[in-house]
């Protein structure tokens, strides 16, 4: 057992070390990978960077619109598929999970360009939002379906026997029970929306660069500990959101 234990420790270290190194050097006073003392300089630089600020604002707008929308659509879909199957919808959602991100991205780009001929609607925040909702619905539906699987439908039937309409039984009996799962799904879709680079970069317009797009451009340009500072910030923020989401799913 000893060598296996040592191996597992090394493997887990391999998974964590790169991120820890990244975070550590975001507090480095120097620009390069030599430790020159503790400093918050790069965080100040990150906060002062107008491109990053614009990217952050765009990402927040997108996530704040897309996450609730996909949560509502996905939750209703999961509820609709709970007792009776909806093979076409289930198949399409499955398809959206299987499709490589790059293909999802170019296919949406093709759609938007095609629509552009009729609607004169350029790429922008709205096209990103539409795309994010499209790929988040499946995630939401999975989380909610998992919760509904352990939910006793007798509760809803009892409500209806007592005279509640189907809608009333849903909102007053089922919804409170699955509320933690809905919150978990909302946080999850917030994170996937905030994180996406591949699809977003294809359907975003010139004036709708998101935070990951700005980070990508900076990483491409070369060494800047500012990227480390933003990354550290994202690592911590995502970690907290996901931990909350997991706690909610266990309820």
């Amino acid at each position, binding site marked *: 057992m000893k060598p296996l234990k040592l191996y597992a420790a090394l493997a887990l270290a391999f*998974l964590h070390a790169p991120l820890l190194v990244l975070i550590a050097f975001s507090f480095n006073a120097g620009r390069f990978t030599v430790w020159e003392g503790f400093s918050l300089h790069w965080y100040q630089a990150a906060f002062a960077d107008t491109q990053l600020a614009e990217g952050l604002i765009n990402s927040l707008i997108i996530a704040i619109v897309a996450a609730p929308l996909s949560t509502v659509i996905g939750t209703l879909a999961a509820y609709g598929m709970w007792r009776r199957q909806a093979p076409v919808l289930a198949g399409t959602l499955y398809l959206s999970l299987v499709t490589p991100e790059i293909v999802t991205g170019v296919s949406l780009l093709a759609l938007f360009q095609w629509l552009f001929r009729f609607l004169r609607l350029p790429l922008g925040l709205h096209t990103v939002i539409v795309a994010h909702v499209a790929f988040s619905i499946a995630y939401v539906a999975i989380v909610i379906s998992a919760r509904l699987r352990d939910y006793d439908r007798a509760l809803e039937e009892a409500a209806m026997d007592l005279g509640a309409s189907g809608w009333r039984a849903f909102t007053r009996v089922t919804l409170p029970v699955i509320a933690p799962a809905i919150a978990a799904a909302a946080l999850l879709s917030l994170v996937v929306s905030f994180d996406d680079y591949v699809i977003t970069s294809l359907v975003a317009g010139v004036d709708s660069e998101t935070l990951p797009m700005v980070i990508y451009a900076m*990483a491409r340009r070369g060494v800047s500990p500012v990227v480390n500072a933003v990354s550290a910030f994202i690592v911590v923020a995502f970690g907290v959101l996901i931990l909350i989401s997991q706690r909610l799913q266990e309820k």
Partner: protein
Amino acid sequence: MNLRRLCLLPARVWTALFIAAPLAIVCAYSLLTRGDYGGVEQPWTLENFTRLADPLYLAILWRSLVIATLSTALCALLGFPLALFIARAGRHKNLLLQLLLLPFWTSFLVRTYAWLFILRDTGLINTILHTHLQLLYNDGAVLLGLVYNFLPFFVLPMYATLEKLDPALLEAAADLGAKPFATLWRVIIPISAPGIAAGSVLVFIPCLGAYLTPDLLGGGKTVMLGNLVQNQFTTARDWPFGSAASLLLMLASALLLAALMRSRAAKELM
């Protein structure tokens, strides 16, 4: 309209418009001709698909297959012992699973950038070693990035099958005189075959369609299928050919996953 249909309606409309329709457009484009200014024109043709058999593109296809296969093999090799340890860790199981997944939950872009930071010529490794090794922009860097990003995809299903492994079987093997290696080879691995199959497919699919990792860590040199698709839709502006490449990628992913869903692995893991 009843309540159930009303609930399904928004998802049906949204997925039809923004998942099914875009893919249908890509299917149609793959059969059309590239226009003079980068648009899409008639006549209908199969030329985009036959062009995929061009030696230039076959090389990209082959490279994607090799990199995805190697990534999968490495994930299996590195992931199997880790899954075995977690499955037998007793009360620390949940903590270890959290530790496995925590880095996975941070941004994909940030995880890939971390390796850029470590490997580049003025990066951490070269600074520590006082060298100027070219660690980035080669197949090895891409492989490392893919294994790093997708290792949990292998460990999780592997763990799920190993957890169900009855310890009595291992004791029985030992009682009958099997050495640890024989137990591993003749008992543990055959029983955990569904986990190996599921984990392999779950790693292979995203690796085959990888775009960001080869783009950032492979530089311009390591072009994989995902990069080919992106390039055709942006720089090269050959949408019909890009569509054909997209369909190939999708078909491969969908077939592999369908095979997995029909196999013994799916029944045991779900």
